[in-house]
């Protein structure tokens, strides 16, 4: 009984950890999701296609972020 309770709790904890990632993925693929609908009326890759095709600064900001974090991590470790 005690082991079952622990298993149940840990299962809930794992769901709690994974849920934000799954929900954010769902949000990124959803549009026209008005209250009080539980499910978006469109679900697909439209948002992703739009971002990749129109956001010109996306790749450059990704590289800038990577460069800054690598630089900070390296300097902080060395110092």
């Amino acid at each position, binding site marked *: 009984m005690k082991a079952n309770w622990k298993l149940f709790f*840990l299962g809930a904890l*794992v769901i709690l950890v994974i849920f*934000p990632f799954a*929900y*954010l993925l769902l949000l990124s693929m959803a549009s026209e999701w008005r*209250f*009080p609908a539980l499910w978006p009326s469109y679900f697909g890759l439209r948002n992703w296609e739009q971002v990749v095709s129109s956001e010109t600064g996306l790749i450059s900001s990704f590289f800038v972020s990577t460069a800054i974090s690598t630089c900070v991590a390296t*300097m902080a470790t*060395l110092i």
Partner: protein
Amino acid sequence: MKSKASNIGFIFFGLIGILPFFAAFIYALLYSFGMVGAANSGFTTEFWVSIWQSGAFLRSLVYSTAVAGTSIIISVSLALWLTLKFRKELEVPFLSFAMYLPLAIPGIVAAFFTFQLLAKAGFFSRIAYAFGWITEARQFPDLVNDPYAIGIIATFISIVTPFFLLLFLNVYKNERVEELAQLSQSLGANKQQTVWRVSLPVLLNKTWTLIGLYFIFLLGAYEVPLILGQESPQMLSVLIIREIKQYDLSRLSEGYVVAVIYTVIVTTAAVLLFSRKNDVRHEG
């Protein structure tokens, strides 16, 4: 050779870590007294008096302290409970990996996620509607941008608890708390006495400096209270940036006054934390 390398490291630390911070502090101090800035004409204490009389800073300081304190107390308690109850289960590779995952979520994304869940038209509001608990969105309770900072505290807890959990699990292993607990039980202590007199004191004694530093970090958090906070009182960083970024140049100096007071409080707290830690070491 080693001392030469450590000297270079120290110089680098001074140049990169301390000098810019110190220069920014002096600039903010001069700005707060009207000695720098296009709209200022010379030394004055009017900005300090104005901030003191408006009470905005004090309200903001009390509000930030309450939010950061509540978040830290709940997170540390939760992490301690999980460590003491589930330490064996959390050694399973998949579970320990799952516990690391939330640390990868930036504050701004966590705040956005909380907003999507708890807002009046958010996920939980939709579920409440589907179950018939509410009939329109505005009946859903205020959980974000609310006076009790529920959204901010919930987000802080979700970000901070995994960090403390991993910290406590490591300390539990490194300080051999398991062996100490067994020893105390073999000497006649019951389970409760072991937890309160042995395990918890060892875990907290080894981590309280980090807990204090994390409290200071939450005190100055910006993105989460910016997205999930209310209009007034605001958390300190949000208040500072609001004052500094506004179009009215004459009020810029008031922002710097708040920044200076905040820096002094945080630096004093950090110095006190570390000096007490060193004292404990010397006594030990």
